C-alpha cells in the first residue's frame, strides 16, 4: 500500500533517517563485535598467545659440546679441537637458495666444485639439517658474512670448535672421523643436538665407538632474536661440558712415522709392546685425511679416494686378510718343538718334495741341501716344513696357530674385524664337507692355501713368540692392567726360534738388509711372501700391481730381550723385500727417532713429499682435471656406508680349493748358490729365482 503512494521528499528524508539509524546500529554492532573479539583474544586466550609470543621472542640455541680428545700414551693429541669460524645454511630457512649461494661464494671465495658439493647436499638434506658451507674461516671472511646476514636468510655463521687431527691421514683408520649426523642418526636419537649447526658425531673408528664418552654435554644460549634470526640480546648462556678424553696405548710419533714410512705402498704396520701387549702403532695406508673427511667429503676428494686401487678407505690392519706366507714358519717350528721334534732333525732339500703324485717345490728350486730347523727358518726352506709337517700333523700346527692368536678375535674397539682362518681337518669337513688332503697340510705350513690372517693377528703372534707371554693387543691405555700370563712354552724352544729369527736378519738369513742401525740392538724377524690366491701370473713380481705378491715381515727387538714386536704387511709389494725395510726403519725409530727420521726424509724426497704433500698434489691434479664435473660425492650417510662396506669382514672362499694351492715362493733371500746357504752374505735385494715353484 505504501508503494502506491507517490514518493515525496519528506518520505525520502524519513527513509534516510530510519536507514541512517539502521546504519548507525550496524556500526555499533560491528563495534561490539570487535570489542568482544578483542576481549576474547586478550583475556580468554591470553595464556596461549603469551606462550606463543614468548617462544617467538626467545631462541634457545644449543652450543655443541667440545669433543673429548684422543690422546696417545704420552698425552699428546691424536684428535683435538680447534676453535674456528664456520658458516652453515638451514635449507628450511633459505628463501632463494641460488642467490644466497652465489652471494656466499662471492664472500667466501668458494670454488665451483665446492658449490656443486653444497648444492648436492642441499638437494638431499631434510629441511632442518644444517648444511656446512665452509669451516675454518678467517675472521675477515666470517665478519663479511655476518654483516650481510639480513640479505641472506637461512645462513648461520658460528664460532665453534672443529675436530682437528694433527697428523691427519696417519690416524685416519685408527681414530676414525666425525661428520654431521645423518637423518637416520636423528631418527634413532631424536636429540635436537644432532641438528645443531656445527655438531658432529663419530662416523668411524674410535670416534664412533666411543661416541657417548667423547660427546660431552651441550651448552645452551638463550637469546632474544628477531624473526629473521638476528640476535638482539643475550639472555644467558650455559657452558658446555666437554667430552671425556680417551687415552690410547699408541705412541703418536711412531704412528705418524710408520704411516709416512709406508710411503707409496699399500699396507699396514702394527707395533706391539712385548711386556704388556700395548699397541704402539696401528697404521693402515694409504688413508683418507680425517680432517677433510670431517668437514664433509667433496666430490674431488671422493673421486680421488674411490678410484685409488690402494683402497684408502679400508683399515687393512683389522680388515685386510692375507695368506701369511712364510711368516708362519716360526710358529710351525714351535709346534714341531712342542710335539717333540728334535731341532737337529734334518731333511735334504733338493728344491722340491714329492707329496703323493705331485712335486711341491721349494721357493729356491736349486735346493737348500741338508736343512735342520734353524736353517729351515732362516733360509725359509719350504721342503723342511713340507717334510716334517706331514710327520707332526695339521692338528698340532693349527692348535699352535690359534694359541698364538691366528684366527682369533681380539677385543678391539672397532666394528667388523676380519678374523681369518686357521684351517684344520675338522674345519674343512665342516665348511666344505671334504676330507683334509695331505696337500692342505703342505700348503698350510707355508702360510698358503686356506690360511688367512690379518696384520694385527700377525703382530700378536710375533709378540707372543718373542715374549712367551699371553699378550692381547690393547688399544686403551691401562697402567694397572694385570701382568699377562705366560704362554707356557719351554724357554729353550723359544730361544731356538729367537736365534733362528735373529739369524734371518743378522746372519745367514733371508733379510740381511733388515738389520737395524743401532749398536747393541739386534732385531729378529721372519720374511714372508704370499701369492695372491688364484692369480698365478708370472712370478708375482714383474706383473701388473694387482697381481704382485704380498710382502710380509714380522720382527721383534732386541732379539735377546724382546721389548717391541712388529708386523708389516704390504699388499702387492712384490714380496717381502717391500716389507722388511719398513719394519727396520720403524723399529729403528723406537730406539733412535732422529736416525730413523733422517732415513725417512731422504726417502720422501724421492716420493714427492710427505703424505699430506702428496695428497695435496694429487688433489690439485684431480681438481684441475675434473673440477666441478666430478660426479657428486655421496652424502655423509652414504659415504660412511661405503667406508663400512669397504671394511666388511672378508668372506672365506665359498668353494673348496679342489687342487693344491701353489707352494709359496720365497724370493726375497740373498741368492744362494744351489744347495748351500750363503752365511752372513750381505742381503742383496732379492732377485727372485725364476720358477720358484
Amino acid at each position, binding site marked *: 500500500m505504501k*508503494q502506491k503512494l*507517490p*514518493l*515525496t*521528499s519528506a*518520505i*525520502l*528524508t524519513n*527513509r*534516510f*533517517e530510519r*536507514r*541512517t539509524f539502521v*546504519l*548507525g546500529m550496524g*556500526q*555499533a554492532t*560491528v*563495534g561490539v*563485535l*570487535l*570489542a568482544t*573479539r*578483542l*576481549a576474547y*583474544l*586478550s*583475556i580468554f*586466550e*591470553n595464556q*596461549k*598467545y*603469551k606462550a*606463543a*609470543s*614468548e617462544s*617467538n*621472542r626467545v631462541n634457545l640455541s644449543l652450543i655443541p659440546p667440545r669433543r673429548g680428545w684422543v690422546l696417545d700414551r704420552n698425552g699428546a693429541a691424536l684428535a683435538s679441537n680447534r676453535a674456528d669460524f664456520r658458516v652453515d645454511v638451514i635449507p628450511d630457512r633459505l628463501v632463494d637458495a641460488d642467490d644466497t649461494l652465489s652471494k656466499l661464494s662471492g664472500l667466501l671465495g668458494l670454488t665451483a666444485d665446492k658449490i656443486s658439493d653444497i648444492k648436492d647436499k642441499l638437494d638431499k638434506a631434510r629441511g632442518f639439517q644444517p648444511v656446512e658451507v665452509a669451516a675454518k674461516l678467517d675472521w675477515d671472511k666470517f665478519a663479511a658474512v655476518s654483516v650481510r646476514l639480513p640479505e641472506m636468510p637461512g645462513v648461520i655463521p658460528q664460532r665453534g670448535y672443529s675436530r682437528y687431527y694433527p697428523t691427519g691421514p696417519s690416524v685416519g683408520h685408527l681414530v676414525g672421523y666425525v661428520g654431521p649426523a645423518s637423518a637416520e642418526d636423528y631418527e634413532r636419537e631424536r636429540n635436537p643436538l644432532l641438528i645443531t649447526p656445527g655438531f658432529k658425531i663419530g662416523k668411524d673408528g674410535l670416534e664412533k665407538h666411543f661416541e657417548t664418552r667423547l660427546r660431552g654435554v651441550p651448552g645452551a644460549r638463550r637469546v*632474544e*632474536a*628477531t*624473526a*629473521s634470526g638476528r640476535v*638482539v640480546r643475550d639472555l644467558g648462556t650455559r657452558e658446555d661440558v666437554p667430552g671425556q678424553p680417551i687415552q690410547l696405548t699408541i705412541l703418536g710419533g711412531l704412528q705418524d712415522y710408520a704411516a709416512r714410512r709406508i710411503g707409496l705402498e699399500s699396507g699396514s704396520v702394527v707395533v706391539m709392546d712385548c711386556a704388556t701387549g700395548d699397541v704402539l702403532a696401528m697404521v693402515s695406508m694409504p688413508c683418507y685425511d680425517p680432517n677433510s673427511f670431517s668437514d664433509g667429503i667433496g666430490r674431488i676428494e671422493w673421486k680421488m679416494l674411490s678410484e685409488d686401487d690402494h683402497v684408502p678407505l679400508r683399515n687393512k690392519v683389522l680388515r685386510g686378510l692375507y695368506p701369511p706366507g712364510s711368516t708362519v714358519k716360526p710358529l710351525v717350528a714351535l709346534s714341531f718343538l712342542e710335539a717333540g721334534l728334535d731341532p737337529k732333525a734334518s731333511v735334504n732339500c733338493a728344491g722340491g718334495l714329492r707329496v703323493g703324485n705331485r712335486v711341491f717345490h721349494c721357493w729356491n728350486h736349486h735346493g737348500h741341501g741338508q736343512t735342520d730347523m734353524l736353517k729351515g727358518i732362516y733360509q725359509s726352506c719350504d721342503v723342511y716344513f713340507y717334510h716334517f709337517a706331514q710327520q707332526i700333523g695339521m692338528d698340532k700346527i693349527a692348535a699352535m696357530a690359534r694359541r698364538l692368536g691366528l684366527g682369533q678375535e681380539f677385543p678391539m674397539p672397532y666394528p667388523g674385524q676380519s678374523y681369518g682362518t686357521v684351517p684344520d681337518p675338522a674345519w674343512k669337513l665342516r665348511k666344505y664337507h671334504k676330507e683334509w688332503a695331505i696337500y692342505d697340510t703342505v700348503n698350510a705350513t707355508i702360510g698358503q692355501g686356506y690360511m688367512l690372517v690379518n696384520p694385527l693377528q700377525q703382530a700378536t703372534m710375533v709378540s707372543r713368540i718373542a715374549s712367551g707371554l699371553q699378550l692381547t693387543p690393547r688399544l686403551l691405555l691401562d697402567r694397572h692392567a694385570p701382568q699377562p700370563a705366560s704362554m707356557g712354552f719351554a724357554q729353550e724352544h723359544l730361544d731356538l726360534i729367537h736365534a733362528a729369527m735373529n739369524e734371518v736378519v743378522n746372519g745367514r738369513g733371508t733379510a740381511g738388509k733388515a738389520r737395524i742401525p743401532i749398536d747393541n740392538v739386534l732385531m729378529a724377524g721372519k720374511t714372508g711372501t704370499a701369492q695372491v690366491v688364484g692369480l698365478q701370473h708370472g712370478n708375482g713380481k714383474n706383473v701388473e700391481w694387482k697381481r704382485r705378491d704380498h710382502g710380509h715381515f714380522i720382527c721383534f727387538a732386541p732379539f735377546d730381550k724382546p721389548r717391541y714386536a712388529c708386523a708389516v704387511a704390504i699388499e702387492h709389494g712384490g714380496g717381502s723385500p717391500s716389507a722388511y725395510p719398513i719394519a727396520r726403519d720403524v723399529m729403528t725409530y723406537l730406539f733412535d727417532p732422529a736416525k730413523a727420521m733422517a732415513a725417512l726424509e731422504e726417502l720422501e724426497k724421492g716420493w714427492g713429499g710427505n703424505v699430506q704433500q702428496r695428497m695435496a698434489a694429487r688433489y690439485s691434479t684431480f681438481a684441475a682435471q675434473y673440477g666441478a664435473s666430478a660426479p657428486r660425492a655421496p652424502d655423509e650417510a652414504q659415504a660412511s656406508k661405503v667406508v663400512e662396506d669397504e671394511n666388511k669382514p672378508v668372506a672365506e672362499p665359498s668353494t673348496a680349493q679342489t687342487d693344491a694351492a701353489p707352494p709359496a715362493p720365497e724370493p726375497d733371500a740373498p741368492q744362494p748358490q744351489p744347495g748351500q746357504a750363503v752365511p752372513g752374505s750381505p742381503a742383496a735385494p732379492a732377485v727372485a729365482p725364476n720358477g720358484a715353484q
Partner: protein
Amino acid sequence: MRRAYIPKGLTRQPWGVLLPLLLLVFFGGAVLYSAAGGHFQPWALMHVARFFVFLVMAMVIARIPQDWFRRAALPLYGILCVLLVLVELIGGIGGGSQRWLNLGFMTLQPSELMKPGIVLVLSWFYSVLPTGETRTWRAIAPAIGLLGFPAAFVMLQPDLGTALAICFGGVVVMFLAGLPLRWFLGAGGAGAVIAPLAFFFALHDYQRKRVLVFMDPESDPLGSGYHITQSKIAIGSGGFLGKGFGNGSQSHLDYLPEAHTDFVFATMAEEWGMLGGLFVLLVFGLIMRWGLKVAMNAPDRFSRLLAAGMTATIFFYACINMMMVMGLAPVVGIPLPFLSHGGSSMMTNMICIGTIMAVDRWSRRGSTGLS
C-alpha cells in the same frame, strides 16, 4: 557566560570531531614511536606532521560552498576515472598490482581518491534525481554505471580491498538515498550466489589464497597465514593492560608484519592491551556518531547523503582493518585510519572528514550556528 570570552574562531571549530581525531593521531604517533624502537623517525613525527597538513586541507575543504561541491562532482569523477585508466596504461608496477601514477613530485593513487569521489558523485546524482524516479530503473542503472566503472578498474589493478571500499561507499549512499529495500535484499541474495563463482573465477591466485588462509590460518603458518597468526599472537599476548609502552616483542622483533601500517592495531594492542583497543574503538565510535549526526542534521538531500557516505567510507576502513588484524577477515591491504602510517590513506580520510565538516558548516549556516 564564560563562553563569551572564548574567541569566536575557536568555538566555531567542530570540536566534537577534532578532539577525538587529535587523541587518535597522537596515540597513533606514540604507537609508531614505539614501533620504531623508541624513535620519532621514521614514522611517528611524519605521521603527526602529515595529520596537521591534511587537517589544514580539511579545513579548507570545509569552507567550500555546497554549490561548488555540486558542480565539481561530475567533472571530478570524470577526472578520477581517466586517471584510473591511465594507471592501467602507464602506472608504475609495484607489488604485483598497478596502483600508482608517478607525477614526478609525488605518486598518486587515484583509486584512493575514488573512495570519497564515488560518494560525492552518487550523492549529487540522487540529489538531482527527481523524487518520483527513486523507485524506477532510472534510479539504479546510472548509479550502477557510475559505481561499476571505477570498481571494475580498481579490481583490474588488482586491488580487492579498495574496490570493496568503493563499492561499500557507493552502496551505502544508494541505500540511504531510499532505493527500495528489496533491491538490496535481491542483490544480497545474488551476491551469495555469485561470490563463490567469483572466488573461483574472478579472483587472482594470491587473493584466493588469502581467503583460504583466512578460513584456516594454521594451514600455512609460514606463508600468508603467518600474518594473521602473528597478529593474533600480538593482540592476545597483550592481555588486559598490555606489555607496556615500548615492550612489544612481536613488533620489535619483526614477527609482526607491517607493524607500522596495516597491522598497527596489533602493535598497539600488544603494548596497550585490551584497554588500548577499547579506547581506539570508543574514539572511532565518537567519530562515526559525529559523522552520522552531521548527516541527520544536514539541510538537504545532497549534503545528507554526502556526510553519511563519507562516514561510511571511514567506517569501512576501520572496520575491515580491525577485523583483519583480529582474524575476522582475510588479509586485505587496508590501513587503519589515523593510526596507520601512510600518506594516501590519511589524505583520503581527511578528505572525508573535511567534507563532513563542510556539511556541518552548511547546516549551521542554515540555522544560526553555534554562538
